[in-house]
């Protein structure tokens, strides 16, 4: 069963001798997180034989906590995609319905937990890549506040946006895994003292009495009716438990997808410049000059979506276009952050459907990249504003999982964990 779903790029077990909170737990690790001595491909032909000489900080912390790593989970190439179909190792199938995508880019990680191939998993979220597959596979996924979790050893796609985050069957277990990986790291200067000695797991007490939940109208309006119906039923359930809901407006989010893609592509074009086939990765050979060799390595090693984003990012940063695209995108990013700050003066958390659509069928979404980018509308604002968010199963529509997203203020992980645990009641 699991082999058919194509969950792992590399299925190998790394045991830990340590005794800790994750002893006896199995964890799947997304294949863009470095594991010493264990192949780490980023879902790309470019790195199909790359073996990291060191562990990412989060992998070190998993091992110290006693976890058993059971494999490297499939993903969209370099995290660029929302369906796990851009992987050079083939698409992962959704365990809930194998004709459908598991979401992405951390689709293998979410599917591993949904299929019971691992108790827990790590993914990465640059514009929704943990929350999207959590929603589509019917599991819990957390995108931490920027700086809560070390990115040391994560192969970078868009540094200013991405965070490593946990997947689990329940909110409490996801929070437990977050407690293990969170906290400052001397090897990542963007990490923060928040998260040292955290205890997010004990916040999963389901107590939402008196909690105020804002619902941004802009993040509900465009969604599929069946998704909205399930979302609203979950909200009513929270109200029945004593929470208060109120509509809020985030005017800026209408520009979030554009801003996100301009910034992510620009950062990608710079980050992926390192793949020249000399120090690691597919070699372009030694014929001709270095420019020709590098361009050959990259033609051969990168798939279509990666080329598309690297080229568009190069375009957005090139002479004459920088102010039009990149600078305006930074303005939009600041605008989105201000909008969220204003909303959190009125409410404790914000709620929306995680994804505006139900999981699409395999092969349905690849022909039109722009249409696929638009399905990230509800997740990317969170990354632009550096905020924490969680996706928790809200119920089903036509037998398919629907995720509810809860967004908190910076380092408000306890609040979103508490609110999400009430959704499970």
């Amino acid at each position: 069963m699991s082999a058919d779903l194509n969950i792992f790029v590399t299925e190998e077990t790394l045991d830990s001798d340590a005794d800790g909170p994750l002893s006896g737990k199995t964890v799947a690790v997304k294949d863009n997180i470095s594991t010493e001595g264990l192949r780490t491909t980023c879902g790309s032909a470019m790195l199909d034989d790359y073996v990291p000489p060191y562990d990412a900080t989060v992998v070190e912390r998993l091992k110290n906590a006693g976890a058993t790593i059971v494999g490297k989970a499939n993903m969209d190439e370099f995290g660029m995609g929302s369906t796990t179909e851009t992987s050079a190792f083939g698409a992962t199938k959704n365990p809930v319905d194998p004709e459908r995508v598991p979401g992405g880019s951390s689709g293998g990680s979410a599917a591993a937990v949904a299929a019971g191939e691992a108790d827990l998993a790590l993914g990465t979220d640059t514009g929704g890549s943990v929350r999207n597959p959590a929603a589509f596979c019917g599991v819990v996924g957390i995108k931490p506040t920027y700086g809560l979790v070390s990115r040391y050893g994560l192969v970078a796609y868009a540094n200013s946006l991405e965070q490593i985050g946990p997947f689990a069957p329940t909110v409490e277990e996801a929070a437990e895994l977050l407690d293990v990986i969170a906290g400052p790291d001397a090897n990542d200067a963007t990490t923060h003292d928040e998260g040292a000695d955290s205890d997010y797991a004990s916040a999963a007490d389901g107590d939402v009495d008196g909690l105020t939940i804002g619902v941004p109208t802009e993040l509900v309006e465009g969604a599929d009716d069946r998704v909205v119906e399930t979302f609203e039923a979950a909200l009513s359930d929270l109200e029945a438990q004593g929470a208060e809901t109120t509509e809020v407006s985030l005017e800026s989010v209408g520009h979030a997808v554009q801003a996100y893609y301009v910034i992510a592509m620009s950062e990608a074009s710079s980050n992926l410049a390192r793949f020249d086939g000399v120090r690691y990765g597919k070699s372009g050979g030694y014929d001709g000059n270095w420019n020709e060799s590098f361009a050959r390595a990259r033609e051969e090693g990168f798939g279509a979506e990666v080329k598309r984003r690297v080229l568009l990012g190069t375009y957005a940063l090139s002479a004459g276009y920088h102010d039009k695209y990149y600078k305006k995108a930074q303005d939009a990013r600041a605008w989105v952050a201000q909008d969220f700050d204003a909303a959190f003066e009125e409410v404790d958390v914000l709620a929306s459907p995680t994804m505006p659509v139900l999981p699409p069928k395999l092969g349905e979404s690849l022909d039109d990249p722009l249409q696929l980018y638009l399905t990230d509308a509800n997740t990317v604002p969170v990354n632009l504003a550096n905020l924490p968010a969680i996706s928790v199963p809200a119920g089903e529509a036509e037998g398919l999982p629907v995720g509810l997203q809860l967004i908190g203020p910076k380092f408000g992980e306890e609040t979103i964990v508490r609110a999400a645990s009430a959704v499970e009641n």
Partner: protein
Amino acid sequence: MSDTSVDADEVRHVATLARVDLDDDEVEEFTAQFADILTYFDALDEVPEVDTETELVNVMRPDEVHEGLSQEEALSNAAESEDGFFKGPKVS
């Protein structure tokens, strides 16, 4: 159809800047897709200028030698190396 027009030569130029070889089919496909995507990005023109007050903190550590990868480890993924160095293609 679109406000922002991109032609095949521009796609080839950007591909050269990014050091990515493209075949003719890819150029054709990207030319059409880039027009759509860049037209969509044009909505950023409507974004107001935003004043940001970012608090910046110096996070640099003292410049001290720490343990790092060994030469052997650093070279372990290189396609070719010579005398303990990476071997790259000719510069020109």
